[in-house]
């Protein structure tokens, strides 16, 4: 388990870094975000880490430090590309938990998203439920602007 786990962990970091760089290339995106920025900028695979991995779910438990702290990472591979990442903290003491939180903040990753019909969901939480009064007013303003 450990050798394979290590390889996958390396691939994970490689892809995160590549994705982060890709996300930075469009400097205008900070002021005018668009759908394509998120959905198309992500590389579907990391060329430098392309390897003969079988599709499927992989999990790894990374241990560190002297207090038996560990963090769990589960990923799904499809065509050598990581499609999901699931991170589980195992920290039992405050210090480790705080460190793990900081780790997550240090490695922001590009989110690609998936078609809503391709994911089994009970509910959705986001922006789509905008107040009716707001939407009506916005439509009116748009109509006036174009008319």
């Amino acid at each position, binding site marked *: 388990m450990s050798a394979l786990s290590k390889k996958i962990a390396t691939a994970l970091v490689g892809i995160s870094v590549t994705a982060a760089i890709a996300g930075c290339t469009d400097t205008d995106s900070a002021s005018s975000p668009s*759908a394509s920025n998120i959905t198309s900028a992500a590389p579907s695979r990391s060329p430098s880490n392309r390897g003969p991995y079988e599709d499927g779910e992989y999990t790894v438990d990374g241990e560190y430090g002297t207090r038996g702290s560990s963090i769990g990472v589960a990923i799904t591979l499809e065509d050598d590309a990581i499609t999901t990442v699931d991170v589980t903290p195992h920290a039992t003491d405050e210090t480790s938990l705080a460190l793990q939180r900081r780790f997550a903040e240090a490695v*922001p990753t590009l989110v690609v998203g998936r078609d809503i019909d391709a994911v089994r969901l009970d*509910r959705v*939480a986001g*922006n789509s439920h905008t107040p009716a009064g707001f939407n009506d007013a916005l439509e009116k*303003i748009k109509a006036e602007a174009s008319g």
Partner: protein
Amino acid sequence: MSPMKPGTKEPSASAVLGRSEAGGSRFDFDALGTRWQIETDEPLSPDLRSRILDRIEQFDATYSRFRPDSLVSRIATAPDGGRFEFPEDSLALFSLYDRLHAATDGAVDPLVGRELELLGYDSVYSLTPAPDEVRAAERARGRASWAGDVRRDGRSVVTNRPLVIDVGAVGKGYLVDLLSAILREAGHTDFVVDGSGDLRHVAERAIRVGLEHPFDPRRVIGVAHLRAQALCASGTSRRAWGDGLHHVLDARTGVPVREVVATWVMADEAALADGLATALFFTEARRLAESFEFTYVRVRSDGRAEFSPDFTGELFT
């Protein structure tokens, strides 16, 4: 997250009891200007449904800045301020605002209501920013702050000038909590209260909640596994009215934030999750974690996401 909307005089007119896809019972209604759902294993009794709608009406009559007859509208129009008596529910609401105000160094502030008005997010939805001279005159008077311009004495709020209170950062989540408490007291042990994306889940089995893509409602960026907690979402991309104008303002500057486009927070209570979802637009999660227990996902305007490793769910990266 959303500022309070005009209340409907007869909320029951649009309230519908039906079946949910999962085979349970579903109660749909309008509240605070958006569509709500309560999903339960057993149908809500007619008495419970009317208590829920009455509770919403009572909340709206106090806190909606979109209703001329509400308590906050009276405060907004009192030329020299005054002493105003709030209901019991204000104690928890305002004390959460105190904590959020402190933890964000003043970025979260109910008095941001006046700034929203100046940008056009007013009670008639003019969506037209006030003229420069009006805003300049306002600046000259000094910006009011929750810590400096509002004195509280139990349920009383004391002001000395017109102040626009907007409980948008916390109010919807708080109402989700209040309705959840009513359901619990009535003996319900398996339900979801969904205030248009601000959720509270009470049941043994976790539900899967899609995290809507900030710029494409046909996509999700991940799935949260929600069990016996609250999940609240906040975003700027949809409720925007042009040229960088949207409804999440830093109260210290009155300027809409640009660095963050969407947030999701899981916490034990929806009021807290809702407030933190707003706070994360201004303040680093690390800092907020010093004062609050929560997990989160935050999408920045460059399309990158930060998340807490203990966020139960998946992100599609």
